[in-house]
């Protein structure tokens, strides 16, 4: 074991926080991600991380808790995407893009204020690439609470949500209101994305949302199995990625560690590749 896990990994409190929060985020992202992939909303899922960044920058400007800013911006941005997109379903892509462009502009402005009001640098970097190693342990209870709330909300709306994603006409016949359901889901998505963008950064947030879910959907037959698979794949990617990032500090001669985000994305890509090979092999067997 010693060659695999470098010294201090288990006893290091920073690593402990990272492992716990990373797993929590992976669980939420996996469950939400399956619905995102089935509904074809990867773009919205990604755009919401950038929207959340605007909230994070705003929060740090007024001195509020970052998570509050992330959540508020995510819900506002997601709501406006959904409001613009549902009326003309095929306009969803464009509506998402316009909201994303505006949010990016807002982020630029707020980051400009942040950087001119304090001499602190590194704000862009930490928001974009956020490092799970820099998260303070005090975030853990709040993070877990938001995660639990998100999962509970997803659980409540899951039936009408899946029905309206897979068969909108049948859903409408059963009295499901697609607009209300879409809005409910985008709020769930925004919360999930806000949480993960805060904890692990914007890049990883998209990777964790889309990667494990698409891999699991290829392998599993049912949606329940896919959800469990996505959660397992996500948690494995985060934990392995954290381990690899931690270890890389000791491996490289310069003692410069590979960022967590790069390590986790690496694991996720391996998972996606394996699932593609698996489904190809299954297709060949017939």
């Amino acid at each position: 074991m010693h060659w695999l896990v470098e010294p201090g990994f288990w006893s290091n409190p920073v690593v402990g926080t990272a492992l716990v929060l990373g797993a929590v985020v992976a669980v939420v992202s996996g469950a939400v991600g399956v619905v995102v992939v089935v509904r074809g909303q990867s773009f919205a899922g990604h755009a919401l991380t950038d929207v959340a960044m605007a909230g994070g920058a705003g929060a740090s400007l007024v001195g509020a808790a970052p998570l509050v800013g992330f959540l508020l911006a995510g819900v506002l941005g997601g709501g406006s995407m959904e409001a613009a997109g549902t009326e003309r379903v095929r306009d969803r892509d464009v509506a998402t893009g316009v909201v994303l462009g505006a949010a990016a502009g807002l982020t630029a402005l707020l980051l400009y204020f942040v950087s001119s009001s304090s001499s602190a640098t590194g704000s862009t970097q930490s928001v974009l690439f956020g490092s799970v190693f820099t998260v303070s342990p005090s975030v853990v209870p709040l993070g877990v609470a938001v995660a639990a709330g998100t999962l509970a909300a997803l659980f409540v709306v899951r039936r009408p949500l899946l029905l309206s994603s897979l068969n909108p006409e049948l859903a409408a016949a059963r009295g499901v209101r697609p607009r209300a359901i879409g809005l409910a889901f985008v709020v769930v998505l925004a919360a999930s994305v806000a949480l993960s963008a805060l904890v692990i950064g914007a890049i990883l947030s998209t990777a964790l949302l889309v990667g494990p879910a698409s891999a699991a959907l290829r392998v599993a037959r049912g949606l329940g199995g896919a959800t469990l698979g996505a959660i397992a794949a996500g948690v494995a990617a985060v934990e392995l990625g954290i381990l690899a990032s931690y270890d890389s500090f000791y491996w490289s001669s310069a003692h410069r560690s590979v960022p967590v985000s790069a390590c986790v994305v690496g694991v996720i890509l391996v998972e996606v590749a394996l699932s593609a090979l698996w489904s190809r092999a299954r297709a060949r067997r017939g």
Partner: protein
Amino acid sequence: MVARASASGLAVFAPFMANAWLAGTLVAIVSGAVGLFVVVRQRAFAAHAIPNGAFAGAAGATLIGASPLLGLVVFAVASALGVAALGRRRDDVVTALALVTMLALGAALLAASGAYEPAIDALLFGELLGVSRAEVVALALLVVGTTVVLTVVFRPLLYSSLSEEIAAARGVAVRVLDATFLVLLAVSAALAVPVVGALLTFALTVGPPAAARMLVRRPGRALALAAVLSLACVWAGIASAYWSGWPIGFFVGVYAAVEYVAARAASSWRDTRARP
């Protein structure tokens, strides 16, 4: 950023602003024209992913001491071809994975090269004031090249955007055309990113063209209007940034969204009037 250098008392049309105006104008024209097809082909995610992902290339180029622009172009084209090859059914999962791969690579390269904040800021938000004469010339060549390619493929590209199935049946090489379009998008984004930033490039690629296509009915006019609306965004953005001292990315992002919302309102109003 415009904001950081703007001191009061200098005219917005001062000589040192000339390159900024020229570069902004050229980028606006290309983004608007290419953007019309981004919107019609529903490729907004790719339009966002390619310039953002390309910044990994800039980081990598810095690491090995090559020109960042070369790195941007190479990575942008590579991710465009990747999306074209893997995304057979416009799979946005493929685009998302391509994007995070590029960004993660960029993060790793940045960590390895030790380049920090200012470089990232410049790539994301642009440095319109730092544009050199040489960059303006490169952008002018880009405008010429893009115009030529778009003119040549205009009809088949439009045809395949309306129905890939029908266009393919008629003998249009839809896969080649899709790859051509994505490479065009990649090259124009890669050249625009160092000047105006990845975020601004994207905002111009979606908002003004989405507005233009709602305001006119003909493809050729929509193309022209998209370029004009995009130009309006940039010019107003430069002026606003100059007078307020705030970053230009903010104004361009907001003006693009305003154009879209206004065009939608106009088209809804027209629809309700047409159908009393």
